[in-house]
């Protein structure tokens, strides 16, 4: 079990150590502590590089020291003749003697204690991105105001994610823009527009200043746009490297800004707007669109009026116009409705008259009524031709919609009277 202190004595201490021994001690103190090892007695045969007999202090793979010879304290108030302090909680001490100890060297006496490590200062690498706080046996990191400590408990970032932009036009900037953006942050914004609009991002070159890419082209800080399966970026550098206008083809866009631990750039500012998706301008025959525009977009409403002689039939009802709306899928509502020729259907039959079965009964077609001649004739001369009109009626130039009247022919005997006059 790790202990806070301990003693190490060479074999047979304080008697002469034996020949040809090698003994090791693995010291361990609780984590978060370092080890202070000090010798109060050192009496080991001296040799060059301590090649014959020695005591070695090893921390990990690093040899902290190799001792031999005789030492005395230089401080009259302290018995310590040699001292080591390692920022590790483990240490190995190895004593080695060769085949001869003829002068009866007595070896060493050493003690170790657990000492607090100041993690905030004792290492080359700073453990915290911002504020480091040392305590006995450990340390903790803390952050400036408006920053938060990441899950790694070491780095601080700003809480810049989660904002959702739903307005049709807007502006988004990196945190603190144009002041330098925070390090160690990941900002995720979302532009969420009504379906039927595509997000279009515009960026001015001068509005973009992000830590430039490294020699391999990797962006340490980056701005990325994600629209469904499409990804734009990552972008970094001084001056926006991407297109100044990005058409995402999507009504949602994720804006992700990732920063690392370093950087003093001002960040970025983008503008976006919702571009309504277009609906095709259908050159429907026999109809007029109001208003007449070169391009129609989402939410546009048009009144489609059938030209004379054409109608749109919904169910059993015919009408001359209908409304259509450009929908969020780029399709027109009521797109199945078409202006079709008015069908006057077969005209009414008349007493003592008839009409020839027409080839069709659509707008513009003409039928001709005739009377049962020679005994009936049309009351209105020239009143036999009826044209199918736009309102679905058969109309005669003289009689309008009134049906022709076949009246008896008067005064004409089928055989003349041949009188035998006396």
């Amino acid at each position, binding site marked *: 079990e790790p202990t806070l202190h301990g003693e190490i004595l060479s074999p047979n201490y304080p008697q002469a150590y034996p020949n040809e021994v090698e003994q090791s001690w693995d010291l361990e103190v609780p984590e978060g502590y370092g080890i202070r090892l000090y010798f109060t007695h050192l009496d080991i045969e001296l040799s060059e590089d301590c090649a014959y007999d020695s005591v070695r202090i090893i921390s990990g793979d690093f040899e902290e020291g190799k001792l031999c010879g005789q030492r005395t304290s230089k401080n009259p108030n302290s018995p310590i003749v040699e001292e080591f302090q390692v920022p590790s909680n483990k240490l190995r001490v190895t004593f080695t003697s060769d085949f001869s100890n003829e002068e009866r060297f007595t070896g060493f006496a050493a003690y170790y204690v657990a000492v607090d490590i100041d993690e905030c200062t004792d290492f080359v690498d700073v453990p915290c991105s911002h504020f480091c706080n040392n305590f006995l046996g450990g340390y903790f990191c803390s952050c400036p105001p408006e920053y938060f400590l990441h899950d790694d408990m070491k780095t601080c970032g700003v809480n810049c994610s989660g904002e959702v932009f739903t307005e049709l036009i807007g502006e988004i900037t990196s945190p603190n823009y144009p002041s330098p953006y925070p390090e160690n942050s990941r900002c995720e914004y979302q532009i969420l527009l009504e379906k039927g609009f595509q997000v279009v991002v515009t960026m001015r070159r001068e509005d973009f200043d992000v830590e430039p890419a490294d020699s391999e082209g990797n962006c340490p800080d980056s701005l990325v746009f994600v629209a469904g399966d499409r990804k734009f970026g990552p972008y970094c550098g001084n001056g926006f490297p991407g297109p100044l206008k990005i058409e995402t083809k999507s009504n949602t866009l994720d804006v992700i800004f990732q920063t690392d631990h370093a950087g003093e750039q001002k960040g970025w500012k983008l503008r976006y707007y919702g571009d309504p998706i277009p609906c095709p301008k259908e050159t429907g025959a026999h109809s007029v669109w109001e208003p007449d525009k070169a391009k129609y977009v989402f939410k546009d409403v048009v009144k489609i009026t059938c030209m004379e002689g054409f109608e749109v039939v919904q169910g059993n009802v015919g009408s001359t116009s209908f409304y259509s709306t450009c929908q969020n899928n780029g399709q027109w509502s009521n797109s199945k409705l078409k202006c079709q020729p008015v069908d006057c259907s077969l005209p009414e039959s008349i007493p003592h008259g008839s009409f020839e079965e027409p080839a069709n009964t659509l707008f513009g077609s003409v039928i001709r009524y005739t009377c049962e001649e020679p005994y009936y004739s049309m009351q209105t001369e020239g009143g036999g031709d009826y044209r199918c009109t736009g309102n679905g009626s058969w109309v005669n130039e003289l009689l309008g919609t009134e049906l022709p009247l076949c009246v008896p*022919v*008067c*005064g004409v005997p089928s055989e*003349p009277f041949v009188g035998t006059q*006396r």
Partner: protein
Amino acid sequence: IFGGSRTKIQSFPWQVYFPPPSRAGGALIDEYWVLTAAHVVENNPYPVMYAGTTSVVTSHLANAQLLTAEQVFIHPGWDMDSKDSRKNFDNDIALVRLKEPVKMGPMVSPICLPSNSVEFEPLEGELGLISGWGRTEKRQSVNQLMGAKLPIVPLKKCQEVEGDGVNIKTYVFTDNMICAGEKGTDSCGGDSGGAFAVQHPHEENPKFYVAGLVSWGAKCGTYGIYTRVKNYVDWIVQTMQENSTPSED
């Protein structure tokens, strides 16, 4: 018909037969209307008629069109009170409205009405046609239609006819009457109500209008009186219009 000859209904397709008790004639002027003399229908408010037949033998009438009267319209000027000893035949004209329309064809078609223009003023010397199943020189009545052509003459001719036991001077003569005939050619009893048909002026093809209706006479075989239809055109048209059904309009 005196002085006439047998004819076919095709030559007088407007001729309507009133069987007994009327035993008279009429003129079809429309699908729904028959024109006749007032004295024909004054005692018969719902007459039965036939059209389209030359022969009025009962068995042949089955092939004719049966016309059923819906209403009779006697001219308001007709004197209904003097029928027992009638000497006033002024306004001898009546209309019969039919319940069902008549189907026209070669044997049934109407005769035209005169208009108010002077062209339709019957002139002396103008010839007209009469037809009927009435008395002839030989028979009280005939089964086959008879026809005759006769001229219009001055009314004075009719006023001078001396009938057997008839004092012609006691009869009323008015401008509503036409006198027509010549010696031997005349209408007679049983022909009443039939048309005196005159050819349309200025018509290329023969076309007849009803200038008169067989009315009365002092003696058959001379001159006879015909109701002057032209004087009643307004009444005829108005009566027809006021009593037509909406569908006819």
